[in-house]
């Protein structure tokens, strides 16, 4: 039980990553695949944040002078996640615009049917 307590963030993050990968590999509809990409990004960001956590830690902001800095969480993963979230948004925006154009050309979003390019 204490294992679950300690590792719940890791289990949650990797659960999201595995669900996202499953959706991307298995589903046919392009919108579902894009949603899976979003879930995968969320899982990766959650994992990165939980790497930096210190038990009973607080935010690394010195809002009052003389605050105890021993229990502050690591600021570097938060900076990494800031960047990663923005990159995820950029990729999703581009993917959705491509989906709009693809629907205009093919009239379907089923990836099994969008296979004009073969060998």
């Amino acid at each position, binding site marked *: 039980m204490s294992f679950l307590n300690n590792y719940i963030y890791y289990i949650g993050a990797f659960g999201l990553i595995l669900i996202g990968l499953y959706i991307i590999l298995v589903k046919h509809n392009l919108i579902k695949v894009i949603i899976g*990409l979003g879930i*995968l990004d969320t899982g990766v960001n959650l994992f990165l944040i939980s790497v930096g956590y210190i038990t009973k830690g607080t935010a690394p902001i010195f809002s009052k002078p003389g605050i105890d800095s021993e229990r502050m969480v690591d600021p570097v993963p938060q900076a*990494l996640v800031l960047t990663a979230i923005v*990159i995820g948004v950029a990729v999703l925006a581009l*993917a959705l615009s*491509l989906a709009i154009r693809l629907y205009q050309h093919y009239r379907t979003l089923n990836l099994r049917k969008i296979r004009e390019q073969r060998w």
Partner: protein
Amino acid sequence: MVDCLPVLLIVVPLGLAFAIPLFALFWKSAAKYIPPVALAFNLITSLLLLPRALENPVVVSIGGWRPPFCINLVAGPVGILFSTIIALVGLLVSVYALDYIHPAPFYIKEALCGKRGGVKEGATEKYHTLYLLLLTGATGVVLTGDIFNLFVFFEILCISSYALVAYLREKSGIESAVKYLIQGAVGSSLLLIGIGLLYGQFGTLNMADIAENIKSVSPISVFVPMVLIITGLGVEAAIFPLNAWLPDAHSSAPSSISAILSGIAIEVGLYAVVRVIFTIFGASSILLFLALLGILTLLLGEMCAFSQNNIKRMLAYSSIGQIGLILFALAIATSYGVTGGLFQLVSHTLAKALLFLAAGYMIYQTGSLQISALEGMGKKMPLTCLAFTIGAFSLVGLPPFIGFPSKFLIVRAALSTEETIFIVLISLVLLGTVIEGAYFFRVVQVLYFKGEKPNPPGKEAPIAALIPMFIFVVLIIVIGVYPKLITGVLNSAASELLNRLDYIRSVLG
């Protein structure tokens, strides 16, 4: 003074790319002249840095802090070699694009091949912005010394290439871009997981610092991050089985972008893989596996190229094959092997870019992508077809072109390791070369020796396209005849890649 130059290699093109929309407000057609200016600046700066970088790598910290508490750029022989190639090829292709990407009358030349899709007047500034940002991302990947910074610049490279593949907005382009985007995005998420695992274990993001810490840890404990990072970078480096996106993407993009993707983007991806393996992980156990993977990629690429009738798809499969060959050479991991791999990389960049540029105008004149439609073009477009032929012969490895010394160096490297496995693999490489010769000679035969059509269409390519092709041809011949011109740089680059301790010492002091 010299110490601040590597930063300018990345920052000046970036600033000019941000300024392109501003210029386009005042002067509509300014946008197409800015990439050549920025890349010429990059080329001159890289050449100025070259003598200094060959002695000691130039380590530049950003923001004035000391490594490992800051991001630093490491401009060593490898970095400056790559940035020179990126600047040179980028400059020549941007000169080609001056005439190839038309703002008026409303069409990009390739879209005239009977398909729907036009471009609003003035919208070609987006092409030039994306183009310049792609090359900035590539330069950033090769110069950086921090693994998260590598991820960010790698993403700049990938996302601009997704947008550029879809630029013509035709059916094939959008479909290829969607598949490329999904595979690339999954790859970069895996890369990010690997970086997170490394950070959790070692507490730092600086490449030299991580290398320092990995020396004292057993290889098994970093096995999973290594596999994740190599898989993530391998999607862009087009290693089998992660290269399913490549034939579609390279054949549906505009020809100038195909030249950049085949010539720069996949090479930079391969550089990232090699840098991670040699410098950070120092892994010698995975090298044999990578060599086998390289040979598999080579054979599959060449065999698929042989059965193609679409010229750009054929060239794309040929790129896959060549990347397999370069990976094999780099995985031999001796000084000869890495030098040969880097030489083959330079030779492939020059030759493949030339092939795509020539093919671009041939497709425009005939209006079709089929090889059989190119019959007799040798008489109507003599200079372009001559350039295509020289590029093809160089890729196959005939003297006196650049492909010959590079392949010779790889064969000699494999034979000098004196292990039977490499002797077996090198015979497979020669088999691949034979297949390559077969399909390229078939195209040359169609161009020159089958003049059955009474009046084949076409006139010669415009002068803005002929100048870059001519410069490529000159480089291919000159370096092919005097390989000593660049073997000095290549040897230093190889020794920088192979010597981890020197790298760590030059960054951390």
